[in-house]
């Protein structure tokens, strides 16, 4: 087995026992990027020289006998909307094509403090708006399981890089499914943590009340190990929760006996592909055979999550993206007559179509005369949905659903139909609306041999329960399939 094919947990042991060095490992992953990224196109920036320097520094620390964190020396890829000091952070937008942050996001400070190696920055839908990574200003990323298909989005570069073994683990961000849906499409594990458990400081804001950074990995344990590093209270993010965290990775036992799994029938309707339903229910039955208790539950307002999500997220996006005005950073139009003309031309030339649609929807739902009918009602629906989940978690430990209604689409298939693209998110947006944690993990293939994702949703700050069940499933089936490239 090549080094780049191994999990972070396996590599961590090899590094600790000095069987391999971080330099060897990092070079192996960079060689892998050089050999397959021409096909996959997951990276926007590869930080090769600095990555090797970081790896050398970690190796030196280890040689000198310093006690290092568990993931020290493991290379990680970062979604390009997470600020990295001195490394371009473009949000896959013309608006930020040349933007170099003068500071690190809190999660990057934590990654660096854990001596992990920053491989580079990963492609995404522009400003994280989209479900296919086709909205990137720079290039389309290809699904490693079928290069003619999309990787999903918006963290499509992160999921594709892990799937193609071009990164050992990666960070993504999830506002309506942007970690879980591409993880499902690319056959990897992706965690959207509880809102408030990971600092958003340095994440370029899309919808601040829904955005959450989270890990993507080849195994459940890898995802748990990265989550253990990035979680925690941060005074730079007022919405980060004030609480202590215990290690999730250490809590994984593989025992699922007595765990109560709820199946909400609202997530298995006619919009969901039959192969997806079958794969998800087969996975649930595996867990049941291993001792989990399965019951049906109801989340009646789930069907309203999509409109509520598009109202809330677009409203917040229209405010957050007002900062891109061509004055302090980013793109500025070349010719203009006055200040307003400069704003309008800068924004019209700098933003892509999907970003413009969301800004306009957000502006509309917040505009005079419409606020009560849209934004206020969406916030009320958000409370109602969160309440239904809360009640469900009095009965069950984990809720199992499909991650996405269908497997990866062909490149170009939905790009001209925003509503079809939005429908990709029907199974994931509810979780962001309710602020809950959820993991997507591979649970088999559909008829076209594309990976299907199982979503496990937990109560707030119960990442240990969902990752516990996910880990049990991974053990039961003996691991997840890799693509052939």
């Amino acid at each position, binding site marked *: 087995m090549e080094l780049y094919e191994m999990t972070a947990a396996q590599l961590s042991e090899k590094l600790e026992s000095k069987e391999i060095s971080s330099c060897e490992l990092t070079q192996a992953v960079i060689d892998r990027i050089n050999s397959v990224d021409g096909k996959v196109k997951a990276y926007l920036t590869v930080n090769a020289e600095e990555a090797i320097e970081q790896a050398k520094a970690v190796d030196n620390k280890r040689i000198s006998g310093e006690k290092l964190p568990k993931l020290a020396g493991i290379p990680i890829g970062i979604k390009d909307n997470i600020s990295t000091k001195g490394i371009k952070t473009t949000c896959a937008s013309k608006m930020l094509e040349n*933007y170099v942050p003068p*500071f690190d996001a809190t999660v990057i400070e934590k990654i660096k403090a854990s001596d992990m190696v920053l491989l580079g920055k990963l492609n995404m839908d522009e400003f994280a708006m989209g479900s296919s990574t086709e909205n990137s200003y720079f290039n389309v990323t290809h699904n490693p399981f079928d290069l003619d298909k999309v990787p999903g989005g918006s963290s499509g570069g992160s999921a594709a890089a892990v799937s193609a073994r071009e990164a050992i683990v990666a960070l993504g961000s999830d506002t309506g499914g942007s970690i879980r849906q591409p993880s499902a499409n690319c056959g990897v594990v992706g965690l959207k943590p509880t809102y408030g458990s990971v600092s958003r400081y340095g994440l370029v804001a899309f919808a601040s009340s829904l955005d959450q950074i989270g890990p993507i990995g080849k195994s459940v344990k890898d995802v748990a190990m990265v989550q253990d590093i990035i979680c925690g209270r941060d005074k730079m993010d007022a919405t980060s929760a004030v609480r202590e965290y215990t290690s999730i990775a250490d809590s994984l036992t593989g025992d699922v006996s007595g765990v109560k799994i709820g199946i909400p029938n609202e997530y298995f309707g006619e919009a969901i592909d039959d192969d997806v339903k079958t794969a998800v229910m087969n996975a649930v039955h595996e867990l049941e055979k291993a001792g989990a208790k399965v019951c049906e539950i109801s989340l009646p307002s789930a069907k*309203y999550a999509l409109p509520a999500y598009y*109202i809330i997220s677009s409203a917040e996006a229209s405010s957050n993206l007002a900062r891109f005005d061509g004055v*302090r950073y980013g793109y500025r139009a070349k010719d203009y*007559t006055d200040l307003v003309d400069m704003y309008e031309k800068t*924004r019209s030339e700098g933003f892509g179509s999907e970003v413009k*649609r969301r800004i306009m929807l957000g502006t509309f739902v917040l505009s005079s005369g419409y606020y009560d009918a849209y934004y206020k009602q*969406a916030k009320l629906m958000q409370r109602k949905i969160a309440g239904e989940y809360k009640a469900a978690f009095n009965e069950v430990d984990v809720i199992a659903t499909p991650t996405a209604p269908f497997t990866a689409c062909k490149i170009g298939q939905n790009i001209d139909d925003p509503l079809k693209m939005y429908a990709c998110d029907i199974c994931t947006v509810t979780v962001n609306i309710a602020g809950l944690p959820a993991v997507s993990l591979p649970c088999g293939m559909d008829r076209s041999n594309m990976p299907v994702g199982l979503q496990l949703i937990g109560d707030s700050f119960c990442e240990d329960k969902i990752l516990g069940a996910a880990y049990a499933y991974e053990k039961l089936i003996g691991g997840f399939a890799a693509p052939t490239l």
Partner: protein
Amino acid sequence: MDIDIRHIAKLSRLKISDDEFAKFENEMKGIVDMVNTLPQLGEDLAIDENNVMQLRQDIAETGKFTRDELFQNAPQVKAGCLVVPKTVE
């Protein structure tokens, strides 16, 4: 439902060209129809007491960045200041 795309674009500080207008209007109508499926719950939106934020003290931290670092991404800088078109006659 009819929405005035030109007015919304103006509020959004975006220009929609004549070529794109029909397509944009059509797409926006579809999206607004989708969000219109949200029912009216007709309750009051009280502050959610389960989600109270802890704000940090508003104390300026100096020395974290130099002025040059903060201006390194600005499109136009002159004499240590951001340059914008004239706004007052």
